[in-house]
């Protein structure tokens, strides 16, 4: 096909976020098969070690450095990326469908008069143009979407569709870019990054995670999953609706806007499996799903599926585990 792909790298708290590694890995392979160059842009400050980490996975890495870029804000990123994109001329500009991608993607593409294709699961790009696959109605349906012909196309890709195993083939090209910002003209001021409370449990570190969803029905009924967590020595996690209801505290939220977990065992109790949840758990080694609805999307990612009443199934599992100790 020829041409370039530009991936916008994400980092937070001195770590490159996993989504970026997924994109570099997956898009890297895709780029090779489509004979396109994979380039990336890192916006940051004093992050030379990132540069080293990343440079091997791309044909070229652009590093825009400025104190204001320690954290992400849409205005600074927009301001720096537009001239870069104009200069580099990639056909595809790719971000993760993350809080950053969702915040920046639409505005960046609109600023450049280009089509925006968010939360894509797959893409095809050739002389005919860009066609992507997206979900609708929370995953109940898929569709193929075509973009109008354009000089640039902006996409966000869903996390978890690629594996992050990137080949680091040594340091390729790095171009450091100095960009002058004019903050007097800016409208949005970054105040602070708020970290999750430290005293809470860190579900992402647990070997076994028991997930509970709306199917539990009520806060008083949590006992049944708490006992399973206790019997397995696992951590209790919950989907967004459970957290929103205040039945469990925020640091236990699992899913797209919560935490991503990759335990040895994930048991989903009364969770329907909307894509925002599944993204956060699909990399678990073994997934067991318990739900009353055999068509619940949770079974799409489960290794073992049980259809039934969690208030009968879960205690039976707890009892079995306890009896075998």
């Amino acid at each position, binding site marked *: 096909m020829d041409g370039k792909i530009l991936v916008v790298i994400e980092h937070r708290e001195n770590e490159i976020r996993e989504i970026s590694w997924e994109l570099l890995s997956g898009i890297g392979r895709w780029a090779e098969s489509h004979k396109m160059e994979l380039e990336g842009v890192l916006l940051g400050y004093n992050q030379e070690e990132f540069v080293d980490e990343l440079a091997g996975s791309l044909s070229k890495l652009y590093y825009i450095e400025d104190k204001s870029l320690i954290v992400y804000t849409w205005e600074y990123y927009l301001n720096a990326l537009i001239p870069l994109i104009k200069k580099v001329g990639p056909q595809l500009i790719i971000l993760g469908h993350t809080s950053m991608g969702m915040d920046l993607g639409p505005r960046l593409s609109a600023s450049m008069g280009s089509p925006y294709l*968010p939360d894509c699961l797959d893409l095809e790009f050739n002389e005919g143009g860009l066609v992507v696959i997206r979900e609708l109605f929370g995953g109940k349906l898929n569709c193929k979407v075509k973009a109008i012909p354009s000089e640039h196309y902006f996409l966000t890709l869903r996390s978890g569709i690629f594996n992050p195993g990137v080949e680091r083939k040594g340091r390729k090209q790095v171009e450091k870019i100095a960009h002058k910002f004019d903050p007097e003209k800016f409208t949005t001021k970054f105040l602070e990054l708020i970290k999750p409370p430290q005293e809470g449990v860190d579900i992402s570190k647990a070997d076994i995670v028991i997930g509970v969803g709306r199917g539990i029905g009520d806060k008083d009924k949590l006992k049944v999953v708490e006992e399973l967590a206790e019997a397995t020595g696992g951590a209790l996690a919950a989907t967004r609706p459970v957290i929103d209801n205040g039945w469990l505290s925020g640091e236990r939220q699992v899913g797209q806007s919560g*935490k991503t977990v990759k335990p040895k065992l994930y048991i989903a109790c009364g969770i329907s499996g909307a894509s925002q949840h599944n993204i956060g758990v699909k990399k678990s080694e073994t997934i067991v799903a318990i739900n009353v609805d055999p068509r619940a999307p949770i079974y799409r990612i489960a290794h073992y599926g049980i259809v039934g009443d969690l208030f009968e199934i879960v205690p039976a599992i707890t009892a079995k585990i306890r009896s075998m100790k």
Partner: protein
Amino acid sequence: MEIFVCLRQTPIIKGEPKIQMDRKSLDLSGLNRHMNEWDTYALEEALQMVQKHGGNVTVVSLGPKETEDVLLHGLAAGAAKAIHIVTSDQQSIDNWTISNVLNHFINKQPFDLILTGVQAEDDGCAEIGPTLAYLLEIPHGSMVVRTEYEPDQNEMKVIRELEGGYKDSLRLKLPALLTVQTGINQPRYVSTMRLRRFKKEATITKLSFSDIASEIKALSPRVEILEFFPYKPEASQVQWLKGEPVAVADQLFERLRAKGVL
């Protein structure tokens, strides 16, 4: 404060959506429709703001006749004004076009704030908020979970939800646009009787989508849906465990033991 809330009416899909034979359209007839869940939070946030700081909420929505219901809901919940940009049933309009039509209407009015939900239940694009902010040339904050209006500085402080329990906080100069996340507040319930009363007595301003669209120079869609297809599980890996709870527990335990998980 003058606040605009952009609402979308989405179909309530229980079970699987029906795809027409040519795979190019969906049969959404006979489905119940409701206000997009995220937008209910945006509406509530706006109403609470004017309750606290004074002002008016105007609700706007683009859609066919049925869209009146969400606008009515907005009025019954406390909005002062409702604008219905009427589209014909058949049209499937892309988000770029919707953003432009909203912009064309809104930028002629004075406003302090625009609120809308982070994303819509139907397409999940999370696109219109920041796009509309760009067109209106105002700052935006997305995924907002808390707002704090600072009238003295004419600014809005917001807390945004990132991933993994992280949040950030921003200060935006007004006018600005915010996309609001679920759980930010508790949307008030509007009863059937209240809705009926408002249906009899309230007025919704009607505008024509095609009229507005034709006034916008060089407006054309940027994406097009080629076809719909149902979810197809790729070689579904799920093993079903069946039987009475005790039997299922046994089977599960065997397998997890064999895998070395337990």
